[in-house]
């Protein structure tokens, strides 16, 4: 550890308070379009830290924290509050509920899971036909969402209605070096931005957007970027780590996207954004200078709020930085506490190195 990182880790330490906040955020329910619960937690956390807080027309929380120095850079940090989940669409005669997926969930992840329904978090289960009643042939086909039901018990009455949202019931836990939780995509981002607001820098006007509806089309970030009109945009998210073995042990897995234990994932390109190389360079150089591990996310598909931020108004130099996590968009993800710590450190270090000249002039390679 270099002296600089030592200083930093004293300041921005992921300790029990930070993990408790992340736990509260992960256990909350905020399916795209109904981000109420996470918004309440965010408002509670940021109100004392900000110069200005507002909730905009779409439900984004927009927080401004101005620096005190000269030549400040207006940096927008965005983290989406919403998560993938389900919406109840029909109550059937047998008191079981049909549902539709909200966001990108592989339906093979759904059967046999515990869920929480509605704002009261009523427990329910997505059942599956007993194996005894299936044929080998039947088990070769996946179970379709349309034939799954949520069961909340025989006395559910009118307590659940079509339109109510549901999420996986997974509870947050720390396991050795790891976190097991639902919705780490993107409560990691939300918690990271709250920590950054607690540690402001004089050279930066922090324009922090806790956005809505990322999982269904980056909608919140688009209007938030317009409102903030920033000099630089940084989307903070969680990206998949596909660092699992190939089924054929002879084959190397060269499409891992990111790997756990290798630090924050710096984006160069995804489906929605070609990152501004000046900012990519700033991240790389800062990481080396401060001795913070980082990895370049393998260029390719996927997308974050940066996809709309960089195209806002006349254009915003933008990048995405993600905490790697395995099994995103399923009942439970696994990520490393150290990777989160290093993500927080790197973003903070980059902000401290940020100055108008870093993005002055024309975009260059």
């Amino acid at each position: 550890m270099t002296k600089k990182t030592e200083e930093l880790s004293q300041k921005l330490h992921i300790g029990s308070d930070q993990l408790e906040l992340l736990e509260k955020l992960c256990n909350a329910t905020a399916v795209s379009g109904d981000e109420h619960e996470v918004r309440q937690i965010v408002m509670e956390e940021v109100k004392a830290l900000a110069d200005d807080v507002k909730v905009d027309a779409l439900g984004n929380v927009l927080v401004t924290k101005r620096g005190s120095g000269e030549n400040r850079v207006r940096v927008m940090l965005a983290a989406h509050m919403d998560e993938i989940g389900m919406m109840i669409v029909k109550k059937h005669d047998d008191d079981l509920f049909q549902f539709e997926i909200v966001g990108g969930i592989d339906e093979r992840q759904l059967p046999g899971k515990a869920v929480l329904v509605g704002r009261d978090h009523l427990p329910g289960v997505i059942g599956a036909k007993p194996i005894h009643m299936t044929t080998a042939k039947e088990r070769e086909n996946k179970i379709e969402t349309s034939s799954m039901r949520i069961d909340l018990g025989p006395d559910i009455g009118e307590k659940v209605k079509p339109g109510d949202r549901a999420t996986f019931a997974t509870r947050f836990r720390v396991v050795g070096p790891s976190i097991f939780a639902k919705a780490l995509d993107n409560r990691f981002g939300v918690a990271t931005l709250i920590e950054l607001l607690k540690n402001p820098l004089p050279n930066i006007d922090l324009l922090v957007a806790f956005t809505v509806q990322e999982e269904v089309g980056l909608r919140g970030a688009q209007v938030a970027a317009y409102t903030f009109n920033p000099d630089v945009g940084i989307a903070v998210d969680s990206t998949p780590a596909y660092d699992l073995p190939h089924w054929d042990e002879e084959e190397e897995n060269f499409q891992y996207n990111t790997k756990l234990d290798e630090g924050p994932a710096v984006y160069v390109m995804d489906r929605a954004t070609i990152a501004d190389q000046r900012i990519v360079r700033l991240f790389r150089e800062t990481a080396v200078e401060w001795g913070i591990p980082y990895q370049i996310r393998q260029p390719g598909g996927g997308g974050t709020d940066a996809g709309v931020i960089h195209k806002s108004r006349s254009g915003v130099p933008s990048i995405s930085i993600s905490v790697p996590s395995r099994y995103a968009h399923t009942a439970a993800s696994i990520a490393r506490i150290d990777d989160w710590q290093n993500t927080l450190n790197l973003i903070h270090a980059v902000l401290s190195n940020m100055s108008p000249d870093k993005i002055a002039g024309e975009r260059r390679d």
Partner: protein
Amino acid sequence: MNDLQNLLKEMLSVSGLSGFEAPIRKIVEKAWEPLTDEISVSKIGSLHGLKRGKPSDPRKKVMISAHMDAIGMMVTHIQDGFLHVTEVGGIDHRILPGQPVVVHGREELPGLVVQPPSHLLPESVGSGPVVMKYLLVDVGLRPDDVSEKVRIGDVVSYDQVPLDLTGEAMAGHTLDNRVSVAATTICLEELQSRSHDWDVWAVASAQEEETLGGALTSPFDIKPDIAIIVDVCFAKSEGATDWRNLPFGEGVGLGYGPNIHPALYDMFEKKAKELEIPFNRDLMPKMSGTDAMAVQIVAEGIPCAVLGIPLRYMHTPVETVSLKDIRRTGRLMAEFIADLKPDTLEQIGWEA
């Protein structure tokens, strides 16, 4: 929370896969110890509790058999810190991705069953279900740590936390067949204040899900005159609506078919009607899929009755049961047993 919920949750808080029943056996022993006169463990790992009947010599014996073992998985291979597993008992691989589990290594390790991304699977899998061979378990530890703590042959149990649903329903793993152990416990509790002529042997049997090993051996030791097998049966739900599925929460399933002695069936039906305990006839035209398959043919043969507690989503970690049906089953067994007279057996015939 009531006593039954507490008891069930305690029984669901431990594992006890087929052949590895020690953790659940300890819990059941604790529950039965104050309710029985003698308690012992069979050579194969079943728990036997004896509650003696009124003094007379010799006394007839009724055995209640409720299997306590659970389905789960076992580690077959360790690759880069990830575990490959095979099933213990019948598991539909389609419900596994994303399930929380405990790996019983050198210490208990929480883990997740995970479905690798499609580009790391054979192309033939496509968007179809991933068979168990290609699923992995991730315990959140680094590879060196995993090799140190996990060995091939370690068992893996479900770790879904039980959920209280509306209408006195509960969801969780291994309700098959801990609900029947709970019903047997209720029966023993009821019998505390009742006089009964027969000796009652409560058995929490081992290995039902794989070998029926418990059910084949306990009756050999006990030599009961009759046996009541209590297990779960299928309850109606989405995709499970045919004649094999009984209504949920609407009464005990009374097994009917070749594994069951018809005179015992008639006695149970009569008793349920007399006490106005709701029941449904559970048709088992070929075999019952329960311990009765084994108990029936031990030694010179044992007359069996089969009681079923209707359960939804059997063999998933979100099996769902009505607590009412558990209580009804426990009470029906107790009433049946309290009614057994020294000469009841002589009245049981084939050509009634």
